[in-house]
């Protein structure tokens, strides 16, 4: 018995000692410092066709930065599947990169952890001022009553990609502008093993992006004005049902898409299995799969009726990547300089061209390089009819809970079982109850 007690006491003492020291976590270097001015670590998200492609795009630019400032940037491209986990562990331990990419929808969630350097007026001044950035992109950088947690780096918007040849064969002369038209066109196109539209049914984030737009088109929001989850209001239920019905009722999405989560719908589109695709800035991706820009057209995402605009006429979320500085950096000065470099006009042009995204920096956006018809649609959408996902601290839980609920709804639809308004509502109710209590 005595030895049991001794072992227990030992373990507890040791753990408490470690726990006490663990409390240091992030606070000890809370404000950042300039201890190691010569190096930076940069976590880039996977934007190109593969990690190798990203390295090829980014490395020359980092070398340029080193030449200009003498600061060496160590690059790590983190796959999307790992990125949020890596940021979480970095936050918990206080050991992370100096500068990192975040999906812009995570801004408010990560802002709440306090791990990211706030971009107050003073910090913005160091990179040329807040006014350099487009408003819609700034709308997705954190809660509106706080200083932004990150600055916009690449902007993207959803558009409707359609296969010109398949449209011609089906006798469709122009891309649909309303959902009714899209469904009608989709029915004409869905035959002989080909389908009207592609979707990523098992990818919670994709589901959220679409559900959000549908909800806005029905005048509904997922969160109340004071930030409470409100997933079961009629507008949201109708919206989610309309999205899932594209497979369940309208049958213009192949049931197999219910298990897609790794961009299979994009390669299906490239192979001509789907005639339409709702995607953000797919050009580079489609090109790398051998689909020429002449083979497909690009149009705004449909609305319920009328033309895209604000309010109920929203037809895209503000998609994009933000650049953040980790508060625990040992090189705040270098990190800020690096952000300034990455958001400079010259770099914005190079990087956004490589990734076929739109620069969130006004002056760079005006460059003729971004005036192609495809980019015109994306630019127009971003400027006029895109809205930011809810900038609330629980955003990442919302993506998981609702995105997974829609995934299960797609699974139900794919199995041939009916998806009624009640089915949708109870799935959303369950998702809502999983949200942190307020």
């Amino acid at each position: 018995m005595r030895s049991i007690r001794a072992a227990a006491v030992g373990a507890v003492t040791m753990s408490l000692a470690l726990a006490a020291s663990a409390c240091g976590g992030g606070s000890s270097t809370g404000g950042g410092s300039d201890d190691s001015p010569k190096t930076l670590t940069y976590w880039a998200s996977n934007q190109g066709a593969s990690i190798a492609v990203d390295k090829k795009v980014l490395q020359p630019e980092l070398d340029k930065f080193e030449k200009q400032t003498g600061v060496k940037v160590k690059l790590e491209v983190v796959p999307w599947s790992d990125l949020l986990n890596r940021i979480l562990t970095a936050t918990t331990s206080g050991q992370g990169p100096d500068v990192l990419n975040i999906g812009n929808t995570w801004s408010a969630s990560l802002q709440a952890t306090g791990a990211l350097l706030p971009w107050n007026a003073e910090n913005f001044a160091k990179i040329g001022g807040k006014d350099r950035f487009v408003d819609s992109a700034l709308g997705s950088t954190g809660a509106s009553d706080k200083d932004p947690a990150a600055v916009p780096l690449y902007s993207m918007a959803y558009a409707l990609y359609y296969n010109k040849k398949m449209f011609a064969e089906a006798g469709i002369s122009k891309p649909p502008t309303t959902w009714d038209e899209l469904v009608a066109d989709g029915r004409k196109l869905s035959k002989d093993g080909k389908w009207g539209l592609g979707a990523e049914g098992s990818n919670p984030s994709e589901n959220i992006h679409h559900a959000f737009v549908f909800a806005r088109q029905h005048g509904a929001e997922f969160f109340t004005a004071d930030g409470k989850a409100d997933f079961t209001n009629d507008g949201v239920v109708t919206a989610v049902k309309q999205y899932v019905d594209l497979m369940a009722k309208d049958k213009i999405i192949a049931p197999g898409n219910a298990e897609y989560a790794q961009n299979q719908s994009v390669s299906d589109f490239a192979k001509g299995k789907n005639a339409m695709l709702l995607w953000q800035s797919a050009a580079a991706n489609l090109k790398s799969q051998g689909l020429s820009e002449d083979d497909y057209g690009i149009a705004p995402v449909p609305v319920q009726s009328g033309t895209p605009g604000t309010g109920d006429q929203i037809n895209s979320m503000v998609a994009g990547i933000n650049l953040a500085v980790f508060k625990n950096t040992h090189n705040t000065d270098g990190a800020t300089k690096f952000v300034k470099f990455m958001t400079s006009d010259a770099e914005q042009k190079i990087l956004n061209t490589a990734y076929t995204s739109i620069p969130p920096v006004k002056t760079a956006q005006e460059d003729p390089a971004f005036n192609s018809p495809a980019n015109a649609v994306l630019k127009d959408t971003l400027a006029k009819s895109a809205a930011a996902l809810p900038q609330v601290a629980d955003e990442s839980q919302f993506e998981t809970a609702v995105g997974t609920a829609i995934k299960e709804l797609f699974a139900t639809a794919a199995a041939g079982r009916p998806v009624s308004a009640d089915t949708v509502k109870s799935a959303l109710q369950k998702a809502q109850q999983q949200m942190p209590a307020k």
Partner: protein
Amino acid sequence: MSSQHASPMAPPRSFLWSRRIFLTLLTGFVLLPVYVMVSSSLKPLADVTGKFRWLPSGLTLRPYVDIWSTVPLARYFVNSLIVAGVATVASVVIAVFSAYAVSRYDFRGKRVFTVTVLSTQMFPGILFLLPLFLIYVNIGNATGIALFGSRGGLILTYLTFSLPFSIWMLIGYFDSVPRDLDEAALVDGCGPLGALFRVVVPAAVPGIVAVAVYAFMTAWGEVLFASVMTNDTTRTLAVGLQGYSTLNDVYWNQIMAASLVVSVPVVAGFLLLQRYLVAGLTAGAVK
């Protein structure tokens, strides 16, 4: 004596027939995924993205060339080899010491030790993932020894994962090595460690090999801790293989080729050593 004690009578036909049917079905079940892995790794991409085909439309070795450039597979391979190799050696040595102490000595706390070590088999990994990660970070901050994100941290973790089962098996094995042997060695002037290494260890080779194989497989296949505790340069195969699902397409043929490449060393080693494994288990675990 590991004799095959077939019963003296010839088996009846019902036995032979049922055996034939059962073993045939089982072989099919076991080999099906192996066949898929091998055949798909030789298929062009169109064959694995379209309807499944039993036979490739054309054989290609392309996937085996491409796997090395799509993700830095060679680096992951080296990482896994180092991590699993060092963890295995260390785990075996430490387990030998512990098992010898428990098998040959009586001391206060022996029971607590064995029960505690064995009960760690029950711990859900998820319970101590985050705390362990915090401990490594804090050790790093306090001493400058980088455990988090390094191969060292992963080695310590994996070697501990395989310890309980290894110690338990070796205790059983050492118990079966007659004590007279170490007594004789002690009479010859060996110290206790001399007796361990000159007498007990050589007599327990099958058990030790079995433990080593187990430790290596544990380290080679672990996913959860590897995904949190490694970075770009220290990533192991278990996590690295996810890189084949790129933004473009799911390269199933490359995934299968890479899976095959990373499986070959373990499977080959395992099959070469399986005789020891059965012998080791016979004496150690199921005695």
